[in-house]
């Protein structure tokens, strides 16, 4: 066993994007130029906030707003939250947000010329169960243009935010869809140097998650940083 305050494992080389990624233009003026300060992990880093479904109400069906169905292809997303020690992370909060089926966010900053859907907002929240499983229903988000370079389009993606069990375990990421031709052209996706780490951001179509006569299913697992074994760990 590991304890709740054991330090987190070091990050595996190549598995995380670099702050300075020239192909993604917005990093240009926003990445630090000084080396990061390596600090020892104290209780500040090894512990983190707890969110309870009683205080933070789950919103597990993004496909219905105001009792009406959103436009687009309904999908089910299901998977597990694990850590690098292969242990499930139970009862942890997952925040979800995305564009609508036409590739438009219900956000004043999004000026893409695609229709808003009055029955799709695009924000959700679920909790993993006792074994780390989570599931939600949404519609497949559309691709949309952005101004990073000429004719730049973001691949279909869903944003996620997870807290895990400690400040050092926080992750914000994006899930992509299999077979998307835009992945090979997307600087955000390609910012992850290691190909295997990158490809784990792509969900898998799963016929067992697919609900007959109702919605396609996709499998997507999260892996949060593991913790070092404590000196007292045995077998």
């Amino acid at each position: 066993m590991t304890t709740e305050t054991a330090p987190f494992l070091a990050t595996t080389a190549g598995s995380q994007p670099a702050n300075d990624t020239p192909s993604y233009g917005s990093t240009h003026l926003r990445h630090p130029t000084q080396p990061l300060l390596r600090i020892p992990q104290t209780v500040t880093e090894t512990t983190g906030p707890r969110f309870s479904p009683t205080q933070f109400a789950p919103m597990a069906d993004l496909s219905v707003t105001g009792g009406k169905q959103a436009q687009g292809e309904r999908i089910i997303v299901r998977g597990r939250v694990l850590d690098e020690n292969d242990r499930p992370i139970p009862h942890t909060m997952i925040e979800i947000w995305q564009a609508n089926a036409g590739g438009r966010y219900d956000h004043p900053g999004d000026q893409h010329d695609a229709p808003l859907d009055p029955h799709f907002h695009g924000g959700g929240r679920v909790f993993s169960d006792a074994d780390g499983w989570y599931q939600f229903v949404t519609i497949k988000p559309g691709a949309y243009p952005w101004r990073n370079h000429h004719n730049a389009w973001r691949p279909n993606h869903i944003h996620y935010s997870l807290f895990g069990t400690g400040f050092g375990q926080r992750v914000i990421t994006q899930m992509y869809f299999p077979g998307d031709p835009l992945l090979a052209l997307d600087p955000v996706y390609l910012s992850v140097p290691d190909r295997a780490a990158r490809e784990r951001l792509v969900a898998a179509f799963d016929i067992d998650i697919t609900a007959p006569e109702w919605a396609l299913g996709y499998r997507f697992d999260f892996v949060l940083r593991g913790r070092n074994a404590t000196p007292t760990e045995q077998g």
Partner: protein
Amino acid sequence: MPVATANQTIGPFWHLIEDPTWADLTRFGAEGEKIVLTGTVTDGGGNTVADAAVEIWQTSPEASETFPGFGRCRTDSTGSFRFMTLKPGPVAGLGNAQQAPHVAISIFARGLLKALTTRLYFQDEALNETDPVLSLIDNAARRGTLIAKKVSADTWRLDIRLQGGNETVFMDI
């Protein structure tokens, strides 16, 4: 052994999950010394960063039913954030070390592919002199990028510079 999932940018539209009340860590009825933490986030061109999510986490006072220890606040059109929280006390460090009162900060934004993490310390705390993290920074000006200035009876200010002159010290944890 599986490797941790890669981070991807929070992007400019994260406000779809925003709850502005999260910026007030005293909203569940916490009692103690209430303080305001504020500041402005700027980039390497001196431009304000108006689309960031600033998150704070503190282990003192200990999180409870009335005090989440965690807050999130957007930067507004002027690049500013503003939290209401409780003033932290000293925090246990490694071994017998004691850490000065501090708040951990994560910055997420378009153009940041993963969080930038730093800490906020408080001006005029005696423990700052011996704090194990501040002591890792030899350059006094660099160290100063982590120390909030008291600007009124209950308000501390710490500006965050992502890049360039007086760049904030960011941390690898």
